[in-house]
């Protein structure tokens, strides 16, 4: 297990190095000049040069790349060109809102997908299965930028139950959590159902039933733990996406999280913020996926043995 963890850590560091180098180079290559962002177009040539030097943009590329890594090692992601704040402070300010939305959406996914997947599998080919399949199809098909305003029209404008957007009023989390959680719940429901059906023909389930265990006990003690492995992998990917900031949902609902910070920074061409947030998103993805791998290995001895 220890060897496996060390190997995963090395893999993670390699991935992060690759991602950070890619992000650094992409921001160097994309059109646009950070000096224009700060000084505007009408700046004098001397002022532009002074600002270029102050931002370190006059240094050779390898030197800038090295400095980027030295700063990164010190937890310094630079300062925002537009907001004049350290990027780490901006991420720290926005992270709680993203975590709150991610937690609510994730709980919603668990509450909907688990029972629905189990019901669909147990009643395969009958109406509960068709209903669950229809829900999954609809949930996956409706894009968030359309579902969000629809929910707002119904629950906020016509019924007056929830606020339209923002994060400061009572109940403001409900609609963003539903918008974000619904499509994820749909995917997880399908995964849960197919995973349960896949192990249905396994000999250990036949043995359990021959021993005289009830269907409920078979499901809880044998089917579910075995069917959970692929579901955990999907949930890990989904949680990574949630922590990375659900960009569309955050923008539609003016939710002040990581996703809306990234969109604002791209629009304002605030290069250090874009760089910092993309790195943070990559880190979240990698860590959550490593966590789900570890969880899968803990649940399934076969994975541990293969490692």
């Amino acid at each position: 297990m220890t060897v496996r963890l060390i190997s995963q850590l090395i893999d993670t560091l390699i991935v992060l190095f690759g991602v950070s180098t890619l992000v650094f180079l992409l921001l160097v290559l994309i059109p646009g000049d950070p000096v224009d962002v700060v000084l505007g177009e009408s700046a004098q040539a001397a002022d532009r040069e002074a600002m270029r030097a102050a931002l370190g943009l006059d240094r050779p590329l390898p030197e800038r790349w090295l400095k980027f890594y030295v700063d990164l090692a010190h937890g310094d992601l630079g300062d925002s060109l537009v907001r004049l704040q350290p990027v780490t402070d901006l991420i720290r300010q926005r992270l709680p809102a993203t975590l709150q939305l991610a937690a609510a959406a994730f709980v919603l996914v668990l509450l909907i997908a688990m029972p629905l997947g189990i019901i669909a599998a147990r009643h395969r080919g009958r109406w509960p299965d068709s209903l669950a399949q229809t829900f999954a199809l609809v949930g996956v098909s409706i894009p968030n930028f359309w579902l969000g305003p629809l929910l707002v029209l119904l629950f906020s404008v016509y019924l007056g139950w929830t606020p339209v957007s923002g994060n400061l009023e009572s109940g403001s989390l409900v609609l963003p959590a539903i918008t974000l959680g619904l499509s994820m719940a749909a995917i997880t429901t399908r995964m849960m159902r197919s995973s349960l059906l896949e192990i249905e023909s396994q000999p250990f389930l036949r043995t359990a039933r021959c021993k005289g265990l009830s269907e409920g006990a078979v499901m809880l003690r044998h089917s579910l733990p075995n069917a959970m492995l692929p579901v955990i992998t999907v949930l890990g990917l989904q949680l990574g996406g949630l922590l990375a900031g659900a960009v569309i949902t955050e923008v539609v609902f003016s939710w002040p999280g990581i996703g809306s910070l990234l969109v604002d920074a791209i629009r304002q061409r605030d290069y250090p913020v874009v760089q910092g947030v993309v790195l943070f998103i990559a880190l979240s993805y990698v860590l959550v996926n490593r966590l789900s791998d570890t969880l899968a290995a803990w649940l399934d001895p076969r994975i541990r043995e293969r490692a």
Partner: protein
Amino acid sequence: MVRLAVICLYLSLVACKPPDTDILVFAVANAPSVLDPRLAGDAVSERTNALLYDRLVTLDEQGRAQPQMATWRALGNDHYRLSLLPSRAPFWNGRLPDAQDVAATYRSLLDPTLGSPHGGALANIRTVAVVNDGDVDFLLKKPDPSFVSRLTVGIVPAQAATGRDLGRHPIGSGPFAFVGWRDDGGVLLRRRSDGQQVAMVPVADPTMRTLKLLRGEAHLLQNDLPSELYGYLAGTSGLTLEEGPGTTFAYIGFNLDDAVLSSRDVRAAIAHAIDRDAIIRYLFGGRAHKAESVLRPQHWAGASDLLAYRYDPQRARDHLRRAGYDEQHPLTLSYKTSTDPFRLRIAHVLQSQLAAVGIDLKVSSYEWGTFFGDIKAGRFQMYSLAWVGVNTPDILRYAFHSESVPPGGANRGRYRSGEVDALIERAERADPAQAAQLYAAVQQRVHDDLVYVPLWYESNIAVARGLEGYVPGHDGNYRALANTRMTHVQSN
């Protein structure tokens, strides 16, 4: 496990405060990013800073300087004395702004280490000298009769002028005081005259901004909505729509170095092929006004007698024939625009109108950085952009003088005219009355040469719910908030 999940979900759903109904909520597309008038570059930040910081002078609708904190007199053609008014408002800490604050503000603007986007417009200042507590002298590198109209940056306290901390913790002497940054990314202000609080709340999505107003969660929206939403909101009871003329000037730019577009006949054909009335009526819902020049005719340096290039498809075809194009030899041109859906829609209407006279327009839309980079580098035949917040005739040098070809300025069409250069240089040295005539002559020549196809001035539109007294400023400013009252209309 399920019970725990339900409790977690419940707590996270209700862990928010009820709304404060006494706060005037102004929903804006983007929150102000920096509350230091020396460093603000985006429109919302500049307009919010104008509420927080008083300036030495403001510009009226004709673009003339009017005293706000100070009066002025010229002591020479390169020497101005600004005298602070006794009636000026104090900073929020109670201290009256003095000459030291004025000098520190303008010296910091000239300091390249501050990195102010306003430094370029003030580069003609040689020194700023404090005469006494109420008087400041500005000495210039060269004479500039309209220098005072550049002194429109908010005054900050001298002790805070050296750093960049003001951007997050502002201290000004304007009609509003800063209360704090909100958790939703917005900012909360307090009107100093009566304590009325105003929240600038960011709502990026225009549909959600509209729904917020309909639901009563916001009391005010201004601009940045699709025109069809204005039509809908205008017919909704409980809402008031205020429309005012704007200064945002939209135009079609040409690359005059291009072999095809260097022909004036080709440019004239394009100008006569565009039906601006139809675009304004159907795409803007009538909420724009035809323009002939970057400065409005009402501006002191504006040109009021420019003849419009009227919509005349036959005349457009005649110009094309003279330039050597007809049905056997059709003209194909490329047109670059941004990815903004509304700008793209306009581009496709232009494409259709030009096709009617035999011009095949290839429309390409690009992400803003690529688009703007191409325009500055001259990698285009035609493009469309708008000048926003134009208040001074400096724009004429910036956009049309041959020294202003990028990177020296914004003469993106590469227009070179010795006559226009000379007129601009004479106007910059002339007294205001003579300068007005010279600037009008510049605009006449630019109009005749068809450097741009002038399109329209986009109106400023505010939609309010439960408010009295709000009218959008001519340049989109929010100054009317100083006199706006809430009438507490109930939401639907």
